[in-house]
């Protein structure tokens, strides 16, 4: 990675909230891809993930943030941004 790319990556990181970065890291781990290949705009389908993978991703986030996300929010996630939205709704301080 050259200096220019590094700067770009760090700028992207700072633009992202902590929540978005954590979601992307967990989605990437589940999809078996490097985190820099996962974007907020990706649908699960584009990443080769299904609804059961979604349940797994939300589970990881519940454990990490120490919260409980109800089934209605968790079952509907179909994209990376859906996961971020579901998580934000249930985080205590609206991170």
């Amino acid at each position: 990675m050259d200096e220019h790319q590094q700067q770009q990556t760090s700028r992207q990181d700072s633009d992202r909230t902590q929540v978005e970065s954590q979601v992307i890291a967990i989605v990437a781990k589940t999809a078996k891809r490097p985190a820099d290949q996962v974007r907020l705009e990706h649908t699960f389908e584009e990443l080769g993930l299904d609804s059961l993978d979604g349940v797994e991703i939300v589970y990881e986030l519940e454990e990490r943030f120490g919260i409980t996300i109800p089934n209605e929010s968790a079952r509907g996630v179909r994209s990376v941004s859906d996961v971020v939205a579901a998580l934000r709704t249930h985080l205590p301080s609206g991170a």
Partner: protein
Amino acid sequence: MTTRRVAVTGVGVLSAIGNDPAAFWESLAAGRPGIGPVTQADCSLLRFQNGAEVRDFDPAAHFEPRAADTLDRFAQLAVVAARQAVDAAGLAAGGDWRARAAVVTGSCLGGQTTMDRGFVDIYVDGRTRPHPLTIPRTMANAGASAVTMQLGITGPAFTTSTACSSATHAIGLAYWMVRNGMAEVALAGGSESPFSPGLLRAWDAVRVVSPDTCRPFDRNRKGMILGEGAAMLVLEPLDAALARGATVLGEVVGFGMSSDAHHLTQPSGDGAAQAMRAALDDAGIRPEQVGYVNAHGTGTTANDPTECRALRAVFGGHAERGLAVSSTKSMHGHALGAAGAIEAAATLLALHHGVLPPTANFGEADPECALDVIPNEARRAEVECALSNSFAFGGLNAVLALRRAGR
């Protein structure tokens, strides 16, 4: 190969809606669910608190103290259901049938409440080893083994474990054994006791359990309700049953199996249709002869519309006019590896009584499940043949075809 008609001459049931066949049938006919707060484990940290537990089951009333100690609750339930079935069949008095009898039980989880307790002993309470009977109490075949020992049955005995299809596979294989002359009597069914703290948390994690109740085919359904129980059937050749003057409750006439080869938890529908067609073919009956289907009907988002699509694919226009479909899981919960046995018992009793049990807790129809689901009230109907569907996680499907006794 010998091919014989196979009669059901005895049924035993313990479930959330009754601890014997008469009480079980009374609840089914009244459309009365047995769903309530789980008492066997603490659910306060879970997204659900309700289950369909067997109530007022006292092992001391059924077993010598030492025998009760050696058996997990799932195996105790299997033995009591087997004794009920044998008594109902009028087999108890004579002894020589025991050498030619088979026992086939289904269980998804085996004695997991025992294993869960053992893990608490080790990981929480710091013991070096769990109780020495942890292994024999936990094995999936503990129910089948206990039935053979308690009843002195010495013929072939084994256990099928195919998640929610376990007991349907067990009854289907036992049916084929009796039909083909491999056993003169078979005790077949299943039992399950899922209410351990660890297992309930695992079910919570997979997000298919309803926070309140089970509403199959309803547009506001929120998932399944875990159930507990056991059911056992006595199968024997019809000619032998009639010759000894036994009461014939109904006949098992066909069995079909298939695999979705698709997904761990999402049903494909094609596999379900293939298993139903296989059961009809095995029975040599036409779809129009089937008047009732006891659906797998879990009340989950995924199962119900997929099962309805499969029913339409198999039954065509008959699915829309003439075929009644209900999910008795709305009353006795989803008893996992015992579900197929409890539902086969419900279906046989329905054929026998000429009354179809309803889908309870039904509120608002889902356009994707718009079949005749017998909402909330049982219906008088003389039905010739019925199917009992079981579709497991992992995509393993099993379907029984049953016929009412000849009149």
